[in-house]
Every structure is written in C-alpha cells, then in structure tokens.
C-alpha cells in the first residue's frame, strides 16, 4: 500500500483559536515537519466549518487525492459530522477524517501563546498518526421500534405524548401518581394571563386518557431499561391499585364511604385531607381510585372493607398484586419534573414552626377553587382572613447555602400570588425580592399590573421571620425583618401571613433516574441535555430525550415547548424507520482467540457469545455498544475495536509525544 496522503486543516475560529494559537505557524509546521508522515497539504482558514472552508477540503481531496483528513478546530462533539460530510461529498470515506480539538482543549483553556501553539502542534501530530490507522467504515443501521415511552405525566409529558400519538405512532405513558396532570393540576391560575389551570389542562389530560395511540400506565414506575436506541426493553412496575379498572366506573362511592381520612401530602401539599381510597382530584385521568395500603384500615387491622361493601360493580380487589410489565420501545422521553424545595431548611423563615408561614404550593391549593378551602384564603386556623400578606421571593434559590441557581418561575409566581391575595382578601401585600426577572412575553406587563394594584415591592432579601414581638404593634403578628436596600435601612414589617416562593429542585430520586436511563446530572441534579443551546432536548444517550423541569426549572410555556420539541425529534426518527449509528464495534479475530473467555464476563451487554464447538468467542455487533473494555482485556490481543483500535491509540500516543519528528524523521514510514 502506498503512503497515505494527508491534509491538515487548521481553523482560526475567528479569533477564538487564532487569538491564542499561532495558527499560521502551526499549519506551516505541519506541512514541513509532518511531510514525511504523509502530510501533503496543511492550510489554515478563518472558519473551516463555513461552506468555503468545507469546499477547501473537498477541493483538496479531489485535486490532491487526499486519502486522510485531519481538521484542527473545535470539539468533535460539535463539528465531527460537518467535516465527515464534507469528506463524503468529495468521495472520501467519512471515517477517514479525524478532528483535533484545539479550541476547547487549547485556545480556550490556556493563556500562554507559545505553550498553546506547541500543544496545538503536538495534538495535531497525534491526530495525524492516528488518522493513518483509520479504516473506511460504514455506519451501522439499526431499525427503530415505532413505539415511544414517555416517563412522567405532567404538562411536558402530556404535550409530548399527544404530539407523537397525533402523528400516528404508539406511546406508552408511565406516571408514578394515580393520575396524570403533574404540578400544573395543583394550580388555580397560570401567569401571566391568569387563565384557569384546570380549564386548559384537563382537556389535554382527557385526550391522553382517550387517545387510541396512548397506553396510559399510572400508579406505575419504570424499574429497568435494557437495550439501546431503536430497541429499548423497559420493565414497568404496575403498583396494585386494589381496584379492578375494567370494572370500575369512577362513580366515587368508595371514596364517599371510606371512613378514614389522612393528610394529603402530595396533591394538597399537606394543606388538606383525602380518603384512604382516593383519586387525587375530581378531574383525575384515569378516574379510577387507588387504595393507599399504608393507611387502609383493612390492610392494618384486617377489617373494614367499607369500600368493597358499597362498590356497585364489585371492582374492589384486596388481593391485587404488583405486576411487572415489559414493553418494547424505540425511543424514550423523560419528563419527570421537579420537587418543591423544603422551606424548613431555611430555619430563619420559620416554615413548619410558625403556623402562618406557607409554602408556594400550599398557597396554590388555597387559591384553587377545588382546594381544601374552596379557594378562600385563610390563616392556618382556617377562619381568619389575613389583612397583611408577605411574599418572599427566592426562598431557597440564588443561595449558595441551598440552591445556587435561579428557579426561573418564582418572580412571576410571586407576582401572581400578590394579585390573587389582593383579589381574594383585599389585604396589603408586600413582595420581598432581590431582583425582579420578567423576561418573557407579557411578563413585565403583568408586573406593571401588580404594581398598579398597589402591591408594596420591597427590594431586600428577607433576613428572618419571627413571632418575637418588640412592642404592641407586633403582638400576635409575624414580623418580617429585612433591609430595605433602596433606603438602606432595616425594617420590621408585621404581617398576618407569609408565603415562601420556594425553589424548584430536582426529584429526590434524580440520581437513580439518571443511572437507569444512562444520563448524567449537572452538579445541581438536573438532567443534562446534549447541548445547552443547540440541542436542548436530546441527551448524550442516543434515543433518550428530556423535556420540562427534569432538565431545569421552567414555566409552563417552556415545558410545553420542550415537550413538543422532544416529540418532533422522536417522530423524525421514527419516520426514518432506521437510525445510523457510529460503527464503533468490537470484533474477535477467530484465528487469534484462545477461547479463554475472559472477555465474556467483561461485557455488560452480554454481546460476546462463546462457541463451545469451536472454543472461540464472537461479538454480536447488534448488542455491542463499543466501549472497548474487551479489547483492552483480551490477553491474546484477538479483539479489535473499530474506531479505537490499539494501533490508533498507540500511534496517537507517539504523535502526541512528537516521536514522529524526534525519532522517526529518518526512518521509513510504517505503512498499515
């Protein structure tokens, strides 16, 4: 085989790279010093990713007959596909192109120009050595199962499920609670338009419940995920409802007759009660109740069965067991939502200790016409109407002691609370804020409206809420102590009621979720998207998408937009029927295999079969994910990993250490 003809292309990326790395010197160096290694051309260009830059490469491939291309630019995670496509357009196998990251790994992280330029040369040299050993490959085509799993039945999941189902593809929706609806179902009004949350949400919930393409699995949780894009096998645990759904008509008699009430910590946020057999709210979808086994008198004492006695259709079944259901899907959308920050952690605000300090979710239930007070706002005693209300923004957000991020929705939510408190009680309302953030459509106008209504806006983060009076005017009140930063003085404002706009935090079990689906979480615990700007709903794991608050705090419009965006991505893939995968796979050279079976146990995907008859192992390319552990572990060196072969890595090490110019200068070039 003749020596390869390699082209090296060094990108300026405007001044992003050229500002720190002497790109012209690097290109000149590559042309001269790596010439003996096959570099026949080395060019630098302002923006290699531009169409002119790509044409430059395509032209060289055609005119100079390049057999390998090295592009020194940004991270391969951004533009690998761009340059591979350019190669392909010029008739070169796209896998004969190697990207070297001299932006993320050099110019952006180093300041010393000389050192940065030297490092850029070294890693280009590594790329050149490596690319020599590249092989022409074809992408693997994997068929896509047309069904999709949507995890989480809040507004983001509902939107995603409906979009996909309406496009004609099957959807499984798994929801942990007895009903879909999520947090949005708990609210009464939604900002900034103040339209009724139930009015806009319940039609969508009903659509999900009735849609012929949607299989709704509530009171269920995903237990296990196997497989990979196109072919996931998902195990869902269906918790026992103790209600035969095929017989239940949702008449509600069981709930009426159940003699036991417990505090509803979930839907009513602890502010109200529910029966032990219950649907969380009247518009629940599906409208079958569940029996809360922990609290059910029958399960505790063995007697009662009031629900069973009164059920007209004999739908109550105390013998029901949990079931594990296997479903096959091609893609997955995670819309698992958020938890509310526990404001008890901010001890100085007294939540949980001072009766009339409420959380934002409690306030939502207060104002909800279907809530425990029928939409009336009272103090904890359930009868007194507050005359003064304090609303504390940023409770647990923007605070390194709790959550070092802005929860995004609290400003608007707090302004909504101010409006509702005033509307419902005529109370004097004080909002305590650090900054007011209203950057979406019609949001600032809503702020103006709340100002017009006479809400007192005090700029200062509240220091403490106390019932320790100083003087008679404070007696029996809660005192909000704050520095009014705009006048520079400490103020103590006596109020009847305090509402804490608590932060949104990742679900308690976010870490297990991330592990089960092979995703990673940010340090705050939110699921990480593939790219924060350009790929906000895809993840690093092919075939798994995220939507809504699972990805970070966001309001309803943004959650809906993400749900729809994730659905669009899923539908696009289904319609292609198959998906192209990186051909990074391991193969066993049957001649070299000694049959030791060490690799068999190294593979987490059970992709390595052992042929007892021939005493050799073989990799099933459909199951192999290309991690390369077996390649590293094979004592006979019989396993090769395409794309990351021993030759490629060892050659790259030589290149990085500049052996190709130090030691090999005079030697003949080894040819693969």
């Amino acid at each position, binding site marked *: 085989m003749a020596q390869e003809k390699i082209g090296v292309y060094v990108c300026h990326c405007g001044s992003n790279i050229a500002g720190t790395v002497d790109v012209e010197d690097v290109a000149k160096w590559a042309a001269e010093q790596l010439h003996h290694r096959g570099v026949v051309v080395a060019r630098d260009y302002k923006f290699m990713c531009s169409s002119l830059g790509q044409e430059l490469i395509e032209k060289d491939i055609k005119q100079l007959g390049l057999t390998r291309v090295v592009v020194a630019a940004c991270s391969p995670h951004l533009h690998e596909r761009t340059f591979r496509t350019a190669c392909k357009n010029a008739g070169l196998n796209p896998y004969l192109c190697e990207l070297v990251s001299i932006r993320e790994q050099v110019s952006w992280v180093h300041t010393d120009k000389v050192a940065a330029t030297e490092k850029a040369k070294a890693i280009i040299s590594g790329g050149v050595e490596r690319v020599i050993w590249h092989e022409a490959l074809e992408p693997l085509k994997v068929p896509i199962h047309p069904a999709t799993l949507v995890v989480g039945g809040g507004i983001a999941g509902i939107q995603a499920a409906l979009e996909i189902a309406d496009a004609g593809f099957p959807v499984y929706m798994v929801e942990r609670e007895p009903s879909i609806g999520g947090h949005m179902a708990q609210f009464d009004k939604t900002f900034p338009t103040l339209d009724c949350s139930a009015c806009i949400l319940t039609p969508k919930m009903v659509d999900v419940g009735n849609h012929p393409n949607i299989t709704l699995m509530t009171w269920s949780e995903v237990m296990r995920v196997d497989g990979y894009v196109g072919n996931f096998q998902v195990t869902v645990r269906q918790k026992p409802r103790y209600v035969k759904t095929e017989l239940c008509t949702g008449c509600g008699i069981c709930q009426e007759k159940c003699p036991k009430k417990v505090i509803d910590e979930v839907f009513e946020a602890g502010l109200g009660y529910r029966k032990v057999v219950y649907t969380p709210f009247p518009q629940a979808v599906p409208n079958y109740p569940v029996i809360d086994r922990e609290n059910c008198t029958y399960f505790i004492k063995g007697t009662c069965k009031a629900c069973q006695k009164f059920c007209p259709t004999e739908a109550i079944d105390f013998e029901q067991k949990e079931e594990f259901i296997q479903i096959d899907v091609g893609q997955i959308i995670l819309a698992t939502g958020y938890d509310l920050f526990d404001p008890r952690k901010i001890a*100085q605000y007294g939540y949980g200790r001072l009766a009339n300090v409420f959380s934002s979710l409690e306030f939502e239930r207060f104002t909800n016409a279907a809530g425990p007070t029928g939409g009336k706002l009272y103090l904890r005693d359930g009868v007194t109407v507050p005359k003064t209300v304090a609303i504390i923004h940023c409770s647990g957000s923007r605070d*390194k*002691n709790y959550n070092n991020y802005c929860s995004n929705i609290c400003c608007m939510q707090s302004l909504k609370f101010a409006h509702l408190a005033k509307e419902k009680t005529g109370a004097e309302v004080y909002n305590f804020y*650090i900054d007011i953030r209203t950057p979406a459509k019609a949001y600032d106008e809503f702020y103006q409206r709340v100002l017009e209504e006479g809400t007192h806006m005090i700029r*200062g983060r*509240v*220091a403490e809420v106390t019932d320790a009076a100083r003087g008679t005017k404070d007696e029996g009140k809660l005192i909000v102590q704050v520095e009014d*930063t705009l006048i520079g*003085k*400490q103020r103590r404002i006596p109020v009847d009621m305090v509402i804490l706009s608590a932060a949104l935090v990742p679900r308690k079990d976010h870490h297990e979720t991330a592990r089960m689906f092979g995703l990673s979480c940010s340090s705050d615990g939110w699921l990480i998207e593939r790219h924060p700007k350009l790929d906000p709903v895809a993840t690093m794991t092919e075939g798994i998408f995220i939507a809504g608050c699972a990805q970070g705090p966001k309001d309803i419009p943004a959650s809906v937009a993400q749900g729809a965006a994730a659905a669009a991505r899923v539908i696009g893939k289904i319609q292609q029927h198959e998906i192209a995968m990186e051909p990074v796979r391991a193969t066993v050279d049957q001649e070299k295999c000694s049959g030791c079976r060490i690799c068999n146990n190294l593979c987490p995907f059970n992709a390595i079969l052992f042929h007892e008859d021939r005493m050799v192992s073989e990799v099933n390319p459909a199951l192999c994910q290309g991690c390369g552990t077996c390649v590293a572990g094979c004592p006979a060196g019989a396993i090769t990993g395409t794309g990351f072969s021993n030759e490629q890595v060892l050659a790259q090490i030589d290149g990085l250490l500049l052996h190709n110019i130090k030691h090999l200068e005079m030697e003949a070039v080894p040819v693969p």
Partner: protein
Amino acid sequence: MAIATTQARAPTFFDRVVAATPGDPHLEMCIQCGTCGGSCPSGPDMDHTPRALFAMINAGMIEKVLSSNTPWYCVACYYCMVRCPQQIHITDIMYTLKRMSIQEGLYQKGSAPEAPGFSQTFIDYVENYGRSFELGLATRYHLSYHPLDMMKMAPMGIGMLRKGRMDLTPKKIKGMDQLKSILAKAKELEAKL
C-alpha cells in the same frame, strides 16, 4: 477569588480590604440583597448597613467607609455570615475595616470615635499579663473615654467585687516573655493594610 485574568493595576481600596482579610472573603460576590443588613442586631444603629458599606468599598469611598461606625457596631453574632446567600465572610471583613480604620486614623472622624479605645485597652492588659483583667479594663477604659459614666458604673463594679466575680489584681502567665516576643514578631509581620 475566582481565577480570572485581570490587567495589572494599582490595588484599589477593594483589593486592599480583600487582601487584609484572612482566607477568601468572597467580597466580589456581593449581589446587594441586604440579607446582612436585615439580619444585623445593631443594624438600625449603624451609619450604613454592611451591604451599603460593601457598595461603598467597591466605589472606593475610603474615607466614608473607614470613618463609619458600622464595623465598630458589629457584635460579631455571625448571623449575616451564615445567612449570606453568596457566603461572603462579612464578620471577618468588619474586623479588617476596624484595623484599617485605626491605621488610617479615620475612626476619630466618625460617629464611634472612642470605640477602638476599648479594644486597645483590652489588648494592653493581654500584652502585659497574658490574660485579660476586667477591673483594670473597666476603670481605665471608662476613665479615658467615658469619665462621666464612672459614677454610673461604680455600683456594678462594686457588685462584681462583692459577688467575688472580679479580681482586684491581674494574673500574669509564666511565659510572658515568650508571649511578648511572639507578639512583637507578629506585629512586625503584619504588613500595612
């Protein structure tokens, strides 16, 4: 402070305050939320709240800051420090401002001109005996700074003596020479703020 490249420039008042504070006080992180000023037990009596003072430090208002009574009215209760959402070491910065104010002699211009006197009197005893001495501290401090209050203070002092809660004479540690050489060296090492 966070790793950032800044062009070389003469140290500002802000830089000096940060440099003279032990550890990393994170002063540059202040978002002016007022948690400190709201939490401060003596906040209502201060010329400026700590938050306002930080803005003034940023603005380079040396004289105003160092003649303020704010650091002297700090009771070191550490409420501001544990509540600060940006984890700024507010109490430590107050101590730094006290030291700078003494060095620059600016405390005399402000509304708490006698405040450093108490600290100075206190440490004089420590530097001479190795232990504090309440009777001497109270009499000497009040004689020097609040002579008119002496009469008011007298009953309390007599009460303390009667209850056996105050010594008539100071106690001296054995290693006084050692302590003196340590403190002398330390003072030599304390660079100008």
